[in-house]
C-alpha cells in the first residue's frame, strides 16, 4: 500500500473540510479524486503531504507515518500543486535544475534527469525563457517538470490542467499515463469528470469532505440503475404520453424538457427500435435521436442530488 488514510478529520474553524475520510491507494494505480470545488480534495492532499494540521486521523505513505521531517518518504514524492510554483528569476532550465538538485546529488544524473523532464513535457525549445514569457499551458508544463524531474515513486497532481489550453491538457494527461507506465503511482485530483474518466484506474468521488463513492469507472457506473440514456427530439408530447413511456418495462425514467424526451434505460439489451416503434404506434412525433452512456456526473448526481459543476 503506497498511501493509507484512515479517518482523516480536518476543520477550518467551524467548517469541516475533510470528514473522517479513509482511502487506500495501491502501487501502480492512477487514483482519481473527483469532486466539485470546495469538496475537500486539495485539503486532503495537503494533509497527506503533511503540510496541513488535522484534528485526527492516521496517514501513512510507503508503510510509514507521514510527518514534516520524514525526509526519506519525501524523497519518493513529487507534487504538482494547483498553483504554479516556480521562480520568476530563473529560466525554464534553471527552475527544473534547481528543484531536481534538491533531490539528486549526482551532477551527471541530475543533468540527464533535467533533460529528460524537459523532453517529457515538451518544453526543451523554451529552456532559456523565463516563466513570465510562457503561456499558461507551458507554465503548467514547467510546473509539472519541476515536480517530477527526480523520478518520484508517488506523484500527486492537484488540478494540474486548470486554465490550460486543450493541446497542453492532452500533453499533460498523456504524460501522466506515461509516468504511470514507468512505475509511478499517481494521485490525480480534479473537478473535470472527463479527465478523471480518461486516465484514472480507480476513482474516489468526494463531496463535503467525504468519499461518497469509490471504485473503478465501471464499478461506479454499475451503481447506477441505468446504463443508457436516449435523448429524442420532440416538438410536443403530453404528460400522459410521458407517463405511458415510463410504464415500458426497461424504462427507468422518462421526462420531457425543452423540446426533448430524456429516457433512461435499465441494464438489459436495449432495442432502440423498440422505443421508436412504441412512439410510432402512438403517433408521438420525434426528430433526432442521441444515445449516451452514464457518466461520473450521473454517479455524483445519484449520491448527492446535484451535478459536479453546480
Amino acid at each position, binding site marked *: 500500500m503506497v498511501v493509507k488514510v484512515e479517518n482523516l478529520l480536518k476543520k477550518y474553524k467551524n467548517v469541516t473540510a475533510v470528514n473522517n475520510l479513509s482511502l487506500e491507494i495501491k502501487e501502480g494505480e492512477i487514483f482519481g479524486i473527483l469532486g466539485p470545488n470546495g469538496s475537500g480534495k486539495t485539503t486532503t492532499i495537503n494533509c497527506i503531504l503533511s503540510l*496541513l494540521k488535522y484534528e485526527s486521523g492516521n496517514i501513512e505513505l510507503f508503510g510509514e507515518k507521514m510527518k514534516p521531517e520524514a525526509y526519506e518518504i519525501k524523497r519518493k*514524492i513529487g507534487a504538482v500543486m494547483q498553483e504554479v510554483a516556480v521562480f520568476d528569476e530563473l529560466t525554464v532550465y534553471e527552475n527544473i535544475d534547481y528543484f531536481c538538485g534538491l*533531490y539528486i546529488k549526482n551532477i551527471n544524473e541530475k543533468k540527464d534527469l533535467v533533460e529528460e523532464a524537459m523532453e517529457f513535457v515538451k518544453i526543451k525549445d523554451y529552456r532559456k525563457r523565463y516563466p513570465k514569457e510562457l503561456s499558461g499551458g507551458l507554465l503548467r508544463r514547467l510546473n509539472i517538470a519541476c515536480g517530477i524531474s527526480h523520478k518520484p515513486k508517488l506523484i500527486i497532481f492537484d488540478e494540474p490542467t486548470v486554465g490550460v489550453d486543450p493541446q497542453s491538457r492532452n500533453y499533460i494527461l498523456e504524460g501522466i499515463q506515461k509516468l504511470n507506465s514507468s512505475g509511478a503511482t499517481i494521485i490525480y485530483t480534479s473537478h473535470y469528470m472527463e479527465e478523471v474518466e480518461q486516465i484514472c484506474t480507480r476513482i474516489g468521488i468526494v463531496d463535503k469532505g467525504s468519499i461518497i463513492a469509490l471504485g473503478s469507472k465501471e464499478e461506479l457506473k454499475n451503481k447506477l440503475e441505468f446504463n443508457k440514456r436516449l435523448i429524442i427530439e420532440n416538438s410536443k408530447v403530453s404528460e400522459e404520453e410521458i407517463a405511458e413511456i415510463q410504464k415500458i418495462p426497461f424504462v427507468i425514467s422518462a421526462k420531457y424538457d425543452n423540446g426533448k424526451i430524456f429516457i433512461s434505460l435499465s441494464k438489459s439489451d436495449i432495442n432502440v427500435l423498440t422505443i421508436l416503434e412504441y412512439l410510432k404506434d402512438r403517433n408521438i412525433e420525434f426528430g433526432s435521436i442521441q444515445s449516451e452512456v452514464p457518466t461520473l456526473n450521473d454517479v455524483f448526481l445519484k449520491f448527492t442530488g446535484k451535478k459536479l459543476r453546480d
Partner: protein
Amino acid sequence: MLLHVLKYKFICLIRDKAIIFWAFMFPVILAVLFHIVLININPQEEFMKVEFSVVDNDGYRQDIRFKNYVNSIIESYENNSQSIYNISIRSLEESEQLLEDNKIDGYVKIEDELKLIVKRSGTEQSLIKALLDEYIQINSTMETILSNNPSALENIDLLTNNFIEDVPLSESDNTDFSIMIYYSLIAMSCLYASFWGLRIITLSQADLSSIGARMGLIPQKKLHILAIDFFVSWIIQLGIITFQLIFMSTVLNVELLKPIGLVFLTTAVGSAMAISLGSFIGAVIKKDEDTQVTIINSVIGIGYVITVSQINEILESKLPFLACINPIKLVNDGLLSLYYFDNYAILARNVVLMSSLTFFFSAITYLTVRRVKYASI
C-alpha cells in the same frame, strides 16, 4: 547540495530587480541628491570666536583678581584650539579704534567698576557679558567665603579655575555634520536588508507562497535551507553596502571609510540584524505579504525618525531599553561614533546589541518555522 542551493539563491537575488533597486540604487540616488544640495554649503562646523580687548589702565593693573582671571582665559585660548575667547590687552585708544574697525566685538575697561563697551548687540557681545557676569559672581562668592572662612580658599583661586582639568571627548577635529546624513543613509541601506529576510521566509512557508509549499516537500532540513538563504542574502547585502560606501567616498568625496575595518564590521553586523529582523517579522506575523512589508517599512521609518529627532533623547531617559533596540539607531550611532570619537566603547556596545538582536530574531524565526504544519494554506 550546499553549492547547488548557494548558486541558485545568488542568481535569484541578483535578478530580483525590485529588491536590488530599493537596497542598492535608492540610497545611492538619495546620497547624490543630498550631495547636490550640500555641495555649496560648508558643513565643517567652526566654533565661534569672540574677540575682545581689555584696556590696560590703572584700574586693570590694580585689580589682581581680574588680571589673573583674564590671563587664565588667554592661557586657555593658547592651549586649546576650541576655546572661544580671544582676549588682547591694549590701550584705550587702540581698543576704541579696533572696535570702530569691527576688528573686535567689544572692549572691557575698569574704572570705578567693570564696564563693557560694545558697538552692537549680538551673540558675541552676549558671550562677553556672560564671561564678565561669571567673574562678578565668582568674585562675590570668593568675597563671601573669605569673610567667613579664609582658610577654605587656601591655595585655591576660583577665578583661575586651576583645580578643574578639561578632558576633551576626542583628539580628532572631525566636525563635518553632513557626515550624519550619509551615515544615516548607510544605516537605512543596512535596514533595507529586512526585505531580503522577509523574502527568505515567504519562499519557505507553504501558507505564504506556492514555492513555500513546494519547499515544504523537499527532503532537506529547513534549517540548512534557511541558513544558506540567510548567508547568500547577507553576502549580497555586504556587496551592496561596500559599493555604496566606496561610491560615496570616491565619487561624492565624503569621508566614510575610516577606520575601514570597523565601518565594515558595523555594516556587516547591522545587515545581519536587518535580515534576521525581516525573517522574524515574516515568520511571526501571520498576515499577507503586504502587511508584513508595511510593518517593516514602519519599523525603518519610525526608527529613523526617532534616531534623528529629539524623541531619541526623551526615549533614552524615559525608556532606555527601547532606545537600545532601535535597529537604525544602533547602526547609525555605531558609525557616527567612529567619526566623532577616538574610543570604540559606543561601537562595541552597539555591535554587541546588534549581535544579540540577530541571535534573538534568528532563534525565534527558526523555532517558529521548523517542522511546521499549517492550519491552512
